[in-house]
């Protein structure tokens, strides 16, 4: 299975990572090696085997809906890279 440069570009776009053109050949080579490692899975007979998403067979627990958290706006915004008037600043989205 060849990991071509277009596949790397498409995947990087889906992951929202701006991979520079110069890095694409090296990344393609590394992804190729990783996918070659996992390729062996295809040969395993899994007919009728259930999927396992999680180690514990627990139902999603429910608890009473009570107020626990209090207003933490200032502390939550303190780590924001850019904020003003209690809002996160981003580049203009709508012209």
């Amino acid at each position: 299975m060849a990991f071509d440069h277009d596949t790397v570009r498409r995947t990087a776009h889906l992951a929202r990572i701006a991979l520079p053109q110069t890095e694409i050949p090296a990344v393609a080579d590394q992804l190729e090696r990783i996918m070659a490692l996992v390729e062996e899975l295809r040969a395993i007979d899994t007919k009728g085997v259930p999927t396992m998403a999680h180690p514990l067979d627990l139902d999603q627990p429910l608890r009473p809906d009570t107020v626990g958290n209090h207003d933490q706006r200032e502390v939550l915004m303190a780590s924001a890279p850019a904020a003003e008037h209690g809002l996160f600043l981003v580049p203009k989205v709508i012209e």
Partner: protein
Amino acid sequence: MELHEFSLRELRQGLQERDFSSVELTTTLLKRISALNPALNAFVTVTESKALAAAAAADARRAAGEDGPLLGIPMAHKDIFCTAGVRTTCGSKMLEHFVAPYNATVVERLAAEGMVMLGKLNMDEFAMGSSNETSYFGPVRNPWHTGMVPGGSSGGSAAAVAAGLIPVATGTDTGGSIRQPAALCGITGIKPTYGRVSRYGMIAFASSLDQGGPMARNAEDCALMLNVMAAHDPRDSTSHPAAASDFLRGLDRPLQGLRVGVPEEFFGAGLDPEVAAAVQAGIAELARQGAAVQSIRLPNNPHAVSTYYVLAPAEASSNLARFDGVRYTHRAANPADLTDLYQQSRYEGFGAEVRRRILVGTYVLSAGYYDAYYRKAQQVRSLIREDFRRAFAEVDVIVGPTTPTPAFPLGAKNADPVAMYLADIYTIAVNLAGIPALSVPCGFTAAGLPVGMQLMGDYFADDLLLNVAHRYQQETQWHRARPSLQAGEA
């Protein structure tokens, strides 16, 4: 013996008898950190004034008549656990300046017992690595040989405990990140049953695999820590209702009649002969104490690494989508538009290995590949769990090497990501199944590097693993060996 070599029980006794105060103990270890950390790089952040204040508070509690196994005892957290008021970097440029607005449950519980946090420990970026070389803050060095890696991803925790900078630390284990560095640094570390230790406030890598646990210099110290760390937490929906237990209670049980299984798959090609010999000697010691040893098969274990490198990156690509450059992370300068802000911030904020795993995860989840990789890997995960189920019908504990080799030189496995992934060949299946496992020191190579023996148990058999490790450590001295480190040595 010096203060920095004391076990938790010895430290408690010294504090009870007023041989030293928590402030004196804390001061001694802070001095040791400032002398030795420049060579080891185990700490990313040292919280000296907060530590001294916490130690004084613990001394006041003791003066008021309080006592407890952890009261006034110093420790440090892997920098993946959120700490209110102290930055939590997860080893990443993305979170270099992130100060969490709250404490992880594990942080809160240990602090409530009066433990004194000395700082935050270095780690592979977002816990993705087996050598601690992917950290944005530089590699940690192995205290036994500073040209060697300490293992990862909890490499800072392992190195700091081995070097006597702290008696105990927290770690996390997604594919071996507690056990592998514990083995490479000659300490004891347990990955508890999935659901034992709350993941609230523990930065997520692969949520169905991640589990926090203690790293210490012996099994009894691990048990003392786990007694506090393991508890049901309503803030973590995967926390088990029966998470809490008394891990000290059965610690001394004799091993007479214990059924030990040794998997053939763990002693095949690729296993270093010195590691094999040390682990075989460890198994012989268990037999000498009355355990019945038999050979077993885990036929799907050879598929564990490939299964993991589909599932863990898939979960990571989803978990790490939250780091967007907007709310609390690194942000690229002068983005052209919002998409560019996301893309540039994520390129700059994540290191090469993290980006690689996000891309693998995005790929295996993308349209057209989901069934071939993700669904297939979830089925093989079932087969791996079934292997353990069958084995635990016949044996109580499974024993084998923790790692295929002792610590390797810095830079040795950086050219090929797959070579690094194979460092976790014996530890990964445990996370996929969700069962508990621990690593105990069981010998040294001729070059003086520690070797770890791995004990694996059935769901919620964490207490049995600690019991076996404790009995083993009553009759062996490997866990008492200490690296010789001088201040300024590199």
